[in-house]
């Protein structure tokens, strides 16, 4: 991105204006514009709805009111407390769920016997919405942290296991053939072939699990939670604090988005060998 040094004697201001933007910078600017556009549209529509009086003001707080509420809750430590509680549960759920899903997914992907025995079972449980488990979980695990992490791990596991299973089952047999004719034993095939081949699928599984787990979070926090964004929304609903509900929803979205973003960056770093359409 080198630009020509200013030519002696010419006014820097004029130089900057006359100098065309590099195509690269232009593309970046356009990308940012495209990314921001839908958000700005939402805010505009929001104001428009209020402006035209389509909804009574009591039912739709203004964006700046929501921002003010968020700011106040941020300063008094309430919002960080809820975000931390939810993030902690989601991370615990995803960690436990995928930790179990990885060996199970590998077994299902690699061994026909495992597929034959476990496939129907997995599909049965996968079809259950995790929320349907909540009453039972309360009976067996009570209403403590364990119950919530259980429900989240459950949803993370079934989301992750299916991605891993499908991914690993699709490993082309040629890689195994090559490795075996070069003398690889079973453990080397696992370490040097299956693991690196599975890495993109593990990362995708993590992303899918994160998404599903955030979606299940509110349900899990219905289990009488004192803290957490779901709990905050729940309490705000019983006091009809619409602005707080909006803050909660936006925070769930933002936190999930930033976790997903972090995972995507990690994927790009780890998977530079993959062929991809340039983004």
């Amino acid at each position, binding site marked *: 991105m080198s630009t020509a040094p200013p030519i002696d004697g010419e006014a820097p201001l004029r130089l900057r204006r006359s100098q065309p933007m590099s195509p690269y910078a232009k593309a970046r600017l356009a990308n940012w514009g495209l990314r921001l556009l839908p958000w700005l549209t939402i805010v505009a529509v929001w104001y428009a709805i209020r402006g035209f009086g389509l909804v009574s003001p009591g039912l739709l707080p203004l964006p700046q009111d929501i921002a003010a509420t968020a700011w106040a809750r941020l300063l008094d430590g309430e919002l960080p407390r809820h975000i931390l509680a939810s993030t902690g549960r989601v991370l615990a759920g995803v960690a436990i769920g995928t930790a179990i899903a990885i060996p199970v997914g590998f077994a299902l992907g690699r061994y026909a016997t495992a597929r034959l025995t476990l496939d129907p079972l997995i599909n049965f449980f996968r079809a259950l919405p995790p929320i349907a488990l909540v009453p039972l979980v309360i009976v067996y695990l009570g209403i403590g942290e364990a119950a919530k992490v259980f429900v989240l791990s459950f949803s993370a596991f079934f989301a992750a296991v299916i991605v891993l299973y499908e991914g690993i089952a699709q490993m082309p047999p*040629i890689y195994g*053939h090559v490795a075996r004719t*070069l*003398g690889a034993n079973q453990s*080397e095939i696992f370490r040097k072939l299956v693991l690196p081949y599975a890495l993109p699928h593990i990362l995708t599984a993590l992303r899918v699990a994160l998404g599903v787990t955030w979606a299940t979070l509110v349900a899990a926090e219905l289990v009488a939670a004192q803290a957490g964004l779901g709990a905050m929304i729940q309490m705000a609903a019983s006091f009809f604090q619409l602005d707080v509900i909006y803050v909660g929803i936006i925070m769930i979205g933002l936190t999930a988005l930033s976790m997903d973003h972090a995972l995507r960056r990690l994927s790009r770093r780890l998977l530079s060998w*993959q062929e991809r359409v340039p983004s």
Partner: protein
Amino acid sequence: MTVPSSLVFDGVSVAYDTPDGPITALGNVSLTINKGEFVAVVGPSGCGKTTLLKLAAGLLQPTTGRVTLDGQPIGAPGPERGVIFQEYGIFPWLTVEQNIGFGLELSANRVSEAERAEIVERYLDLMGLRDFRKAFPKALSGGMKQRVALARAYAVRPRVLLMDEPFGALDAQTRLAMQDLLLQVLEREGTTGLLITHAVEEALYLASRVVVISARPGRIKAVIDVPFPFPRTHHHLANEEFARLKGELTELVMEEYAAQSRLSLASQS
């Protein structure tokens, strides 16, 4: 120098199970490849050449008959039988140099770190891949991938080389260079080999015998002895005898291509 080995196919047939019933890919093939001998196999597409190679590699068991190496039945793949696959199979998550060194890192071919580095360096040079050593396969052309696959197989110094159209993706000049490199490797190591190829000329240049396989189910239609002594050079290609053999072999192969297209026309109607 490594110990050479003899490879024997004894009354081998292979039938694949498919949803439409069994497909006979090879029917009763017997062939002996002596120690240090290099045999080429030609035949129409789908006649069972790759199937033959997989038997020798130990990736497939015959439906009837036996395949033996030095008298021992072939049960599983092993590093003493190097394979160059038709579809390369280079690992996309490893760089060029890691792909070449892959076999050398396995416990079956224990070589020291220094020795591995030296072998990898040598093949990077021999294959003209030095500038691409850190590149991932996604950045390679088809011909470059094929050279990586060749280097990876040569690097572990197998006693038997099983090659499935190993030069198919190469341009004419690289192809000649790779053929000469193979001749050098064979001579230095005394390797026993099986080469599958579509190019009649290549078969005559590299092999001491050329086996023609018939259209499916593959059987041995003819075996042609190639009289030229080793070491061979490109002068042989200009030889009159070479031209005559090439004509004869082309004739035989074309007959089978014709038989095969009649077969597929018949099965369509």
